[in-house]
């Protein structure tokens, strides 16, 4: 790429986005603008490799899983699983009425949300603080990444060791006169989980926020710098709007990662988990790999999938993340 093309791009950019905004749009996203480019010579084949992979390795097994959720599949019928008795919705009924599934979903969603609420400001702070060049910035940027780079298994083992009664954290708190009680059992374990999750996943938000910051136009910086804008105002009104897209995505994906995070609670609390942290992945794992009731477990996972997908799509609509031509609603 050449500098020329870059500057060219920059100067035309405003125009483009301004032109984009009033573009006629219908809700299903069919956009009439630039029909010439869009309709002619569409390289739709580029979707095929990824699509094929996802169909074979995600969709097909998912359907298989859904099929299994209708079977009375347990250790006694596992070997001939295809001919396991079909029991319709019984697994779903059992999951909803006779298992702690709903409680687990509630725990999973609420903990994910709480962890997310803290990681987002942390991630933004980290990204903003390392945006400006300074000596050692590369090092600090890499340091920030460490929690995310350590395998969950290690993170959980380390924190479990530190949260042990009478261990490092307790003795530190004790020296300042706090008796914190149990971290890995009882009601507090819920907060322990949130704490560790925040530690492990804020770099994820940080990374996305950092990539978002790179898109802030130079003119914007110049303008606000020349205006002598207060740094806070500059951040609030000039820079943050640029982060809306990546952060909406970070929020969504972060939530899903938290909800589906199995290793962290599993290593942190073991099985059977204290009822305060009997999360969704733990429940499905125990049901399928310890109690060997795969049918029931598949039904649980399927119910949770649906319960999580609904808010997900409401959210998608709300932040217009899926709507290509109005990113962030800025400018």
């Amino acid at each position, binding site marked *: 790429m050449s500098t020329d093309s870059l500057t060219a791009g920059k100067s035309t950019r405003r125009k483009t986005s301004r032109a984009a905004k009033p573009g006629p749009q219908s809700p299903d996203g069919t956009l009439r603008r630039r029909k010439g480019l869009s309709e002619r010579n569409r390289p739709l084949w580029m979707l095929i490799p990824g*699509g094929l992979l996802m169909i074979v390795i995600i969709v097909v097994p*998912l359907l298989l899983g859904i099929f299994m959720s209708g079977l009375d599949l347990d250790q006694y019928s596992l070997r001939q699983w295809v001919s396991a008795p079909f029991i319709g919705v019984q697994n779903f009924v059992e999951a909803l009425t006779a298992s702690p599934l709903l409680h687990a979903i509630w725990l999973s969603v609420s903990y994910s949300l709480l962890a997310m609420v803290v990681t987002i400001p942390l991630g933004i702070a980290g990204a903003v603080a390392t945006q400006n060049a300074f000596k050692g910035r590369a090092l600090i940027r890499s340091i920030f990444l460490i929690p995310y780079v350590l395998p969950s*298994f290690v993170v959980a*083992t380390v924190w479990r060791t530190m949260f042990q009664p009478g261990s490092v954290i307790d003795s530190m708190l004790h020296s300042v006169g706090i008796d914190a009680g149990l971290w890995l059992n009882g009601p507090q374990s819920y907060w322990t989980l949130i704490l560790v999750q925040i530690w492990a996943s804020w770099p994820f938000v940080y990374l996305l926020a950092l990539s978002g910051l790179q898109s802030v136009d130079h003119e914007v910086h110049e303008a606000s710098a020349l205006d002598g804008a207060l740094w806070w105002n500059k951040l609030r009104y000039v820079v943050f709007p640029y982060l809306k897209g990546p952060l909406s995505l970070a929020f969504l994906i972060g939530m899903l990662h938290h909800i589906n995070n199995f290793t962290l609670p599993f290593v942190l609390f073991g099985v059977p988990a204290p009822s305060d942290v009997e999360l969704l992945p733990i429940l499905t794992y125990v049901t399928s790999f310890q109690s060997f009731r795969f049918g029931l477990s598949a039904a649980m996972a399927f119910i949770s*999938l649906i319960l999580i997908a609904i808010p997900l799509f409401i959210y998608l609509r709300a932040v217009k993340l899926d709507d290509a031509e109005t990113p962030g609603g800025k400018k």
Partner: protein
Amino acid sequence: MSTATTAAGRRPSEDFRPGSKRQHEVTRLMPGPMLAIILTVLCALVLIPVAYIFLASVNSDIGVARGEFFPSSFSFENYSTIWSSVGLATGLANSVLVAGSTAVVSALMSIATAYVLVRYQFRGRLTILRALLGLQSVPGTLMVLPVFVLFSSSATYLGIQVIGTQWGLFLTYLTFAMPFSTWVMVTYLRGLPRELEEAARIDGASNMGVLLRIILPLSWPGVVVSGIFAFLLGWNDVLFASVMTRPESQTAAVALQVFGASQEGGAIPFYGQMMAASLVCAAPVVILYLIFQRYLVGGLTAGGVK
């Protein structure tokens, strides 16, 4: 950390020339002291547990199990023993191979997919975008068994052995990385101006040409971010890797877990070696990031994630 603050405070901010190396000055977002506080707090947040891992790695296992922070005895022996006891070399080689190729291929595939999804209008476009996120929410614990059944039946019916090979693992991670990588690229590509592509097209560039020569160079930050995610997905997974690998294709994360697991009625796990091994495992990723992070520098591209 201390150098950070002084450096940030001292730099003047007159040089606004776009594309210049000193352009960062203009982008200064915060007063020095504020920056110092944030950097110190965040570094402490990260480094204290990391310091604990390091100290544990030179401590005795009994010391770790008894909850010491500062070791009562020092020994760096763990850093040499792990290579034979954990089988770290094979593990790391496999992890680099699998996670690395996942990162590269998923970045390339997702940029192509995202490009089509962002630039072209067609029926089902929105459905695909949403379905991608839907797929992202499928729990791994639900997928392990069916994916295994699928792969093992490929050996039974097609005669292709997938289980136990690195490429079976690679395909799995690639697929699970695709939805997210694609989304990162979608949000990123939306910010890129169309004019460049159109100019290139007028010059007769093909779709592929536009993608490789215009889009790819402009979207490095997005590529790096989605590549890192894909890499870490493969690097850290144990759920799939533990059932789908064999000793010779085992990844580092699995080797570590096998090593760190304490046994029933058994003795103390080798905490020291495990901590040493996990630091060693983290190192390649941090180094990789050190190399690639310069592509995350702002201002070079006109567009960006919005």
